[in-house]
């Protein structure tokens, strides 16, 4: 599968993310000969355990994320970052999870689900594909963040692609820096081996990268007041 880097926008201290930045980033993609191809959407579900007693809630992992990826809507990925777990399931598992909530157990436990969408346009630059997306809570237009996917189609080995991706990231940063935006994109590389994944890139790798940036998305969206 093609290698993908997930980047998220890191605003300069004291600034917030807004739609102006989003449109500048999109224009930058077009300025380096990116051909706009269509829309894409990734859905992130944040699961939070809820129960009457806080002690029970604390036993459950706090970083439990469900991810539905644009290129494979039939699959659903569940990641618990703290324990380095990633599971690939059919998308029908969401139905099972809902039904489980109403299953009576000794401890009544519900999961509160917050849905967040990452959606935007995708651009083709030869063998590279760039996706620029805004992070919005479901049923809302408030911009919480900007996420980008940077994909290189000819290679599927994570190690072998490192130099090419790093170089392209640099090229991209250079192109963006000409627009003097208040912030920059950041790429954090997760340790895939910890999750038991191989060097061959797959959708689980993407899911883990998304899970990694969710902490940042949640943090920045809670700090800033919602802005358009």
């Amino acid at each position, binding site marked *: 599968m093609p290698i993908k880097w997930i980047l998220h926008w890191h605003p300069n201290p004291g600034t917030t993310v807004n739609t102006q930045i989003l449109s500048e980033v999109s224009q930058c993609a077009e300025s380096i000969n990116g051909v706009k191809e269509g829309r894409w959407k990734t859905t992130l579900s944040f699961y939070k355990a809820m129960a009457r007693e806080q002690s029970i809630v604390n036993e459950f992992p706090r970083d439990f994320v469900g991810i539905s990826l644009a290129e494979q809507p039939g699959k659903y990925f569940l990641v618990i970052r703290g324990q380095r777990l990633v599971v690939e399931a059919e998308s029908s598992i969401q139905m099972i999870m809902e039904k489980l909530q109403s299953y009576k157990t000794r401890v009544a436990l519900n999961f509160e689900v917050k849905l967040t969408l990452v959606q935007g346009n995708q651009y083709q630059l030869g063998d590279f594909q760039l996706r620029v997306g805004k992070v919005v809570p479901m049923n809302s237009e408030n911009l919480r963040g900007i996420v980008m996917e940077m994909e290189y189609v000819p290679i*599927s080995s994570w*190690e072998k692609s490192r130099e090419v991706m790093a170089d392209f990231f640099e090229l991209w940063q250079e192109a963006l820096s000409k627009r003097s935006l208040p912030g920059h994109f950041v790429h954090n590389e997760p340790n895939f081996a910890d999750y038991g994944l191989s060097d061959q890139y797959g959708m689980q790798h993407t899911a883990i990268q998304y899970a990694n940036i969710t902490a940042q998305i949640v943090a920045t969206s809670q700090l800033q007041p919602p802005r358009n």
Partner: protein
Amino acid sequence: MQQPAAPPPAQPPPAPAGNAPPKQVAQALEQLGQAGRLIADVRLGADRLLEALFFVAEKPHHQYSAKCLNLILKEESLMRQYLVNLRAIGRQLEESGVLNDSLRSRSNSWGLHMPLVCPDGAVVAYAWKRQLAGQAGASAVDRTRLALKAFTDQKRQFFPHLADDSVLEPATKKHCCPLPISYEEIGDLKTVSDMLSHLEKEVPNLQACTYQRMEWLKRASSLPSSANENPTESTKDLSFPSTSKWREHPEMHAADKAAVIELLLPSVFRAIVSLHTAGSVDPDAVAFFSPDEGGSHLHARGFSTHHVFRHVSEHASMALQFFISAHPKMALQLLLHWVCSYQTLFVKMCSKCGKLLAMDKQSGLVLPPVKRPYCFTSATSTSKNSPTEKCNLNLIQAFHIGCFSEDT
């Protein structure tokens, strides 16, 4: 394609970018028309030349042979002129963005719908609607553009050693470097099996196999082509029986009738070389693909779906032509060795600009250095040590398309 009524023919534009779109369209139309006429002139000239040559060849001492010779000389200079003019028009069209893809990729394509030429030659009028307009929609612009494209594609395919600007210029000094392996070593490798086993020892991780033609076609079609295939499963399936066929059963005649050689460097490339007659050591075509690619287009004359490998394949065809013409007896060994120099395709910086990725001006794409020099001098390497051989292969320089020139 929607076009306004053509204004009267314009003078050659000093700054095409400054003109209004309808005028640019009209100029492009006129230039394409001129190009069409020049191509017709070239064709007629070629016919006349051939006729004259046949005549002189049959009756060398005929009274008219002197006249014919004059005709040939005159025709030759006329042809040169046509080709020069054609090239000039081609450049103008490229600059205005008509001939390359960059205009199409710009969001403001003159405010007009840019027709899309599909790979099979069909012209689609509205690229964004992906409708098939059919022949009625193909305008003069589209047809001439198709003709020009077919012209250059065929020239590139059948005369790959003719670089775009080298037809009229004297033979330029080629970029030459010492051979990466010694002649004595190569001389010992007589059969395909010898060559491949030697190569596998030299290049770490390389998997080399031979196939008969039908075998290869079956294998190519069975290779997983979708990016969504589970990668761990597919690598298990690729432990193909024929991988070790030529090694474990040397007495089998299958290796002798090998017609296709596959060089797989996992995670980097898969190169296919076809041999002219099955069982010979004469290569006649080479192509590069991504190791994850699969399908019936995976053969020595096929084209990869990825731009980077398409460019490498094009360059490889030129290298092959050079090896066949300059070192015919060792063409296969040299080719196989040269192919393996691409093990550094995604890591080696360009020897000219020092960067890994660069935007290619002609295609508007970001590419790694896809060119490697193939013009070797006869200086032999002095050492036969294996570590030095490995180093030699990695010493072959890499260049971006724009950084590579024949006479560096």
